[in-house]
């Protein structure tokens, strides 16, 4: 991250938090008015502001409520505790990483096949697109059941859902990247009568690196979504998805939001890591800074 970005990000985050506070007051007011009415109590504007930011089941929890919840469930709990968000984030992360790794490999392999074989290109590509129009959450439960039926359970089914979601950006990006070398660069290889694998390793593969990392950034974020989705039909026993669901189930908005924020932070850490890896590779490769 360039130093030039820090201040703008902070300003934008501050603005979002400001808007968030305003929205908290606005959205929680109707309920608070009902409470005042039921209790028959007089209230002032400042009462309203303080009370809307401290409800137990707010429509929108205030940022500090979420921050306190996150603090309590991360720093103040042992990481092995089931009430620790670190523990749940770790469960989700392991499925995310497994799915991301499989999705990337699958995506690259498919892309290589598509680039080297016209029949694969023509027949598979449209169905790769169609596959992504299937709502995964709809078939996730069935996938899990079917995988259970063939004896797969635990991490793998969740990871497979991540795989399903994350291979798509990788295929699309890598097909583009592997085809990106210009005609002149391919012709050069032809004049050396280089073999297909030499063309691949010496030209297509290095040329596609920026595309690979760009799509891996998308893929890792989407993998996290997949892992969370996959947690729901596995009984939502643990993981950020389970926290989201349990929060939903009991109307614990503070818990939902803290799980959401942790998920988003996790996503951005993962994306940043992939980006850093990409930066490292391209620097090693001598790409213009």
């Amino acid at each position, binding site marked *: 991250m360039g130093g*030039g*970005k820090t*201040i*703008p*990000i*902070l*300003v*934008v*985050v501050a603005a*979002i938090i400001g808007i968030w506070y305003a929205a908290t007051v606005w*959205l929680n007011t109707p309920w608070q008015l009902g409470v005042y009415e039921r209790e028959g109590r007089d209230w002032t504007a400042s009462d309203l502001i303080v009370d809307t930011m401290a409800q137990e089941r707010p*429509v*929108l929890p205030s940022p500090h409520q979420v921050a306190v919840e996150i603090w309590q469930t991360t720093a103040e709990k042992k990481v092995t505790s089931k009430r620790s968000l670190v523990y749940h984030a770790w469960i989700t992360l392991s499925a995310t990483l497994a799915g991301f790794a499989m999705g990337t490999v699958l995506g690259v392999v498919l892309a290589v096949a598509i680039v080297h*074989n*016209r*029949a694969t*290109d*023509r*027949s*598979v*590509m*449209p*169905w790769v*697109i*169609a596959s*992504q*129009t*299937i*709502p*995964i*959450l*709809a*078939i996730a*439960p*069935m996938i899990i*059941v*079917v995988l259970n*039926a063939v004896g797969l359970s635990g991490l793998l089914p969740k990871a497979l859902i991540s795989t399903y979601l994350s291979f798509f950006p990788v295929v699309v990006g890598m097909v583009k990247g592997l085809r990106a070398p210009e005609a002149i660069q391919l012709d050069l290889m032809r004049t050396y009568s280089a073999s297909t694998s030499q063309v691949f390793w010496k030209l297509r593969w290095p040329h596609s690196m920026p595309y690979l990392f760009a799509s891996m950034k998308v893929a890792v*974020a989407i993998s*996290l*979504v997949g892992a*969370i*989705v996959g947690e*729901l039909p596995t009984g939502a026993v643990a993981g950020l*998805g389970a926290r*989201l*669901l349990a929060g*939903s189930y009991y109307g614990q*908005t503070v818990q*939902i939001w803290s*799980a*959401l924020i942790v*998920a*988003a*932070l996790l*996503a*951005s850490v993962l*994306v940043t890591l992939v980006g850093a890896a990409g930066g490292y590779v391209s620097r090693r490769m001598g790409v213009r800074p």
Partner: protein
Amino acid sequence: MTRLQAGLAAAVGLLGLLGLVLPLSAETGLLDTPFLTTFAVLCAASLFRFRNPLPVSVDGCLTLAAGLALPMSLTVIDRGSAGFWCLAAAGWLAAWLFVERLTASRRGGRWTALAVPVLFGVTLLVLWEVVTRGLNVPQVLLPPPSAIGARFAASIPILWADFQQTFLKAVLIGYALGCGSAFLVAIAIDRSPFLQRGLLPVGNLISALPIIGIAPIMVMWFGFDWPSKAAVVIVMTFFPMLVNTVAGLAEAGRMERDLMRTYAAGYWQTLVKLRLPAAAPFIFNALKINSTLALIGAIVAEFFGTPIVGMGFRISTEVGRMNVDMVWAEIAVAAVAGSAFFGAVALVERAVTFWHPSNRT
């Protein structure tokens, strides 16, 4: 023939021979299934192709024979055994070989471009049918395509109503509002590098929020009907569009901009005549990504509270009712609608960015 094609032809032949030799199922013999037997003989004959590559039409016939013989014989064979599965594999490889040779022969052009993916899809469907029925997979786990088709035909009014609710209302409106507002915001923040540097990373973060988290909140804020689904779609489509548009607006080359400067062109003139056309490939990239995202978003959002109509509602309730064929009928609608939406955007893209190297032929 290429090495791959020769290999496929050999595999088809060997599997066909095996199909003739191995038992088809416990109580059924070869003679009970004339179609399948014919197919097996045809496959075995394929061994002779090494010498003499027959015309593509022969592969077409073989594929057609597989497509007819395999499903038809399922009425006779209720649970396939080794021989049957050999023939199923032979059918699949025959279809593959056909596709391989269709694409290799450069004639046909547009027609093969359409036929190949269709053929691939049909192959998948036939295999699905053969596997689910051949292995007696319970209907509640995975129904065969024929059952899904029957259910589809019988439920057209319901499917249409769901389609209207989810696609025509939530998806299209959400998509238009999400992409449209992101486009305007992108143009607005384009003039402020400060905002760009701050907003884009935060935007990426927000677009990484799982929809399962947002959907219940939107239901809480915007109610049960389609507006809350449209809101989910807006959230999902906003950031891909924003990020791509901003990146696209930066795409115009240095020299092209300098040219505009030498004309002392105004901001809006530069925007309309240079930067938007140059950004079009990026914008269309986002529009394509969003076309599938929007549909998934709307359907998933319906899992968290809806009136009793909508594709997501139907999927989630019918799973619970064990009507898995209805679920797949609904998924088929989603896949067709999503692919058509994607295809439509891609067509517009081709027309608008015809000048881009990737679209020149």
